[in-house]
């Protein structure tokens, strides 16, 4: 009577690479003897010199360890499958104790006793249960960004027992992140975000696998990376990456669990599912470069990514479990000031260039160019740059120029340069009358980006004697006057 024996990976090279071998034998013992007769090299790995199975060789019939059956005398029926299952042992020192016998547990469950204890509040819910928890364990989720949204996302997904979590990020922890990026702590400042995230997640749940990719997500690496995950969650803070994540999700067929935040408001949705709309169906074109400020420029309420990232985590878990109504075809809008949630219906755009029937985008494109971030900004931008030290000596020489601060009033309250005039960038186009084309103007902002945009506006309106303070007031604080607070 033929019986099938499943061969574990480490022994396959001794049976010609096969994962299973058919042998004859009425009992487990006889079947194994017939296996080593056919494949002689297996013998020394399975049996010790005294002719007994080695201590680390375990034999199962179907899902039962034969230790709890009749050992080698366990009878076999034709449909039975015999598996050779390794246990692993080793260690550095002298043998003070023998390795333990396998604990006498009941039928092996797909979750260990430890996992059952850990996830018990899931297991007792009918919507999750053992089956759902196993789904979570077998699932893999890729998180783009270990920042404001990535913090709650990764913490909750790890705690929930998602078996494999990948994180893409290349940033280091900055003091200004700590107000909202709760996966990182004060002692992590200066450390790569992935390192500190990994350490924290390991502490939250040591039973899962965490994969980290310390790299920028690019058109070159996105597709390959996304392929090995079930779900992608977007926690990015910029438009080029957001479009890249969307397109790569559509192209690889992975759901894109999207979230975004600004000041007091957040959005969430689930894009790129089969038949559902994608991010491009909602926003075919990015906003003009510079119109929508990033968190670094516009600020964000620290708790906001906590709320939106947690919504994303809930959506990811629902997708994995296959329960409830995910935010497919719906855009959730959250306003923390009004404390309201609204949902807008979204439709799939039949003309969508990536998910429509006549899609023209077949692979990731150049997203920086698509979002207008190429340096079309300003003629001879390099020549307009003015270093902080240079500005300092201009001030010391009492040169005649207008020092223009284009930040917002609340930033002005934090720090300012002596003799500066405040005209926020948003008001500048309407305040040109307050400036004279005759005066040399040095513009500054927090980091030197918005002031460049200000110079563009001025240049377009006939101003010529323009300079931009490189690195903004933070650069000034760093190199000229450390008493000015950096933010």
């Amino acid at each position, binding site marked *: 009577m033929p019986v099938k024996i499943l061969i574990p990976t*480490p022994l396959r090279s001794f049976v010609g690479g096969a994962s299973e071998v058919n042998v004859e034998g009425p009992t487990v013992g006889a079947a194994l003897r017939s296996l080593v007769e056919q494949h002689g090299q297996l013998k020394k790995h399975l049996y010790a010199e005294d002719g007994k199975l080695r201590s680390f060789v375990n034999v199962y019939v179907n899902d039962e360890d034969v230790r709890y059956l009749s050992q080698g005398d366990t009878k076999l029926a034709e449909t039975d499958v015999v598996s050779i299952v390794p*246990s692993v*042992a*080793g260690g550095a*020192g*002298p043998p003070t104790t023998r390795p333990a016998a396998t604990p006498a547990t009941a039928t092996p469950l797909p979750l*260990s006793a430890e996992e059952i204890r850990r996830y018990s509040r899931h297991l007792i819910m009918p919507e999750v249960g053992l089956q759902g928890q196993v789904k979570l*364990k077998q699932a*893999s989720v890729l998180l783009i960004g270990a920042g404001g949204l990535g913090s709650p996302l990764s913490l909750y997904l790890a705690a929930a027992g998602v078996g494999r979590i990948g994180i893409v990020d290349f940033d280091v922890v900055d003091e200004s992140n700590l107000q909202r990026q709760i996966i990182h702590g004060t002692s992590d400042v200066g450390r790569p975000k992935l390192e500190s995230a990994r350490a924290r997640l390991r502490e939250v749940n040591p039973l899962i696998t965490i994969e980290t990719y310390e790299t920028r997500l690019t058109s070159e690496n996105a597709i390959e990376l996304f392929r090995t995950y079930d779900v992608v969650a977007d926690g990015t803070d910029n438009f080029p990456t957001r479009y890249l994540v969307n397109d790569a999700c559509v192209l690889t067929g992975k759901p894109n669990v999207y979230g975004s935040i600004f000041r007091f408001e957040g959005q969430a949705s689930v894009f790129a599912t089969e038949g559902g709309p994608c991010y491009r169906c909602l926003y075919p074109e990015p906003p003009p470069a510079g119109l929508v400020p990033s968190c670094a420029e516009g600020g964000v309420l620290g708790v906001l990514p906590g709320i939106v990232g947690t919504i994303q985590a809930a959506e990811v878990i629902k997708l994995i479990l296959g329960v409830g109504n995910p935010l497919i075809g719906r855009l959730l809008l959250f306003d923390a000031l009004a404390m309201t949630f609204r949902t807008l219906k979204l439709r799939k755009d039949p003309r969508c260039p990536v998910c429509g029937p006549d899609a023209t985008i077949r692979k990731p494109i150049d997203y920086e160019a698509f979002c207008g971030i190429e340096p079309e900004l300003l003629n001879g931008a390099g020549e307009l740059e003015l270093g902080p030290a240079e500005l300092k000596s201009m001030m010391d020489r009492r040169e005649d120029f207008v020092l223009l601060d284009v930040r917002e009033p609340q930033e002005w309250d934090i720090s300012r340069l002596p003799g500066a005039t405040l005209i926020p960038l948003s008001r500048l186009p309407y305040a040109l009358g307050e400036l004279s084309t005759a005066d040399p103007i040095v513009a500054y902002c927090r980091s030197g980006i918005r002031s460049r945009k200000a110079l563009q506006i001025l240049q377009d309106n006939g101003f010529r004697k323009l300079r931009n303070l490189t690195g903004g007031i933070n650069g000034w604080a760093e190199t000229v006057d450390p008493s000015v607070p950096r933010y």
Partner: protein
Amino acid sequence: MIRVPKGVVEEIRAQGAGSYPEECCGALVGRAGEGFKSVVGTRPFLNRNPDSRERRYYVGPDAYREAEAWARAQGLDVVGIYHSHPDHPARPSEFDREHAWPWYSYVILSVEKGTPSSMTSWVLADERDRFDPEELECP
């Protein structure tokens, strides 16, 4: 040759430091080709040795089956086992050899006074009489 990405090395080192003075252990999950293995991630095991966990690790077949099923579900394989040697060099002991499976890569991390130090990889010779060192690449 076995390739273990830097992130995975860091994970193993963190586990080795975290479990000190006890030994940590886990499955290396990845892909294998002819004379070549590439690790994608780890599946940590709880050290189930009833005592002397500073000198010994033991992982039962159920935990192994779970790790294997998990790897298979992702189209991967268990390609090796890692464990730490607290305050002991990163080379296999006699006990390691006696309990070793062929083909697997045995990655050993030495942890000195709680701080992870050297990491090596070994493969059992077919004769079971020795471990051969294996080239460990950490891109």
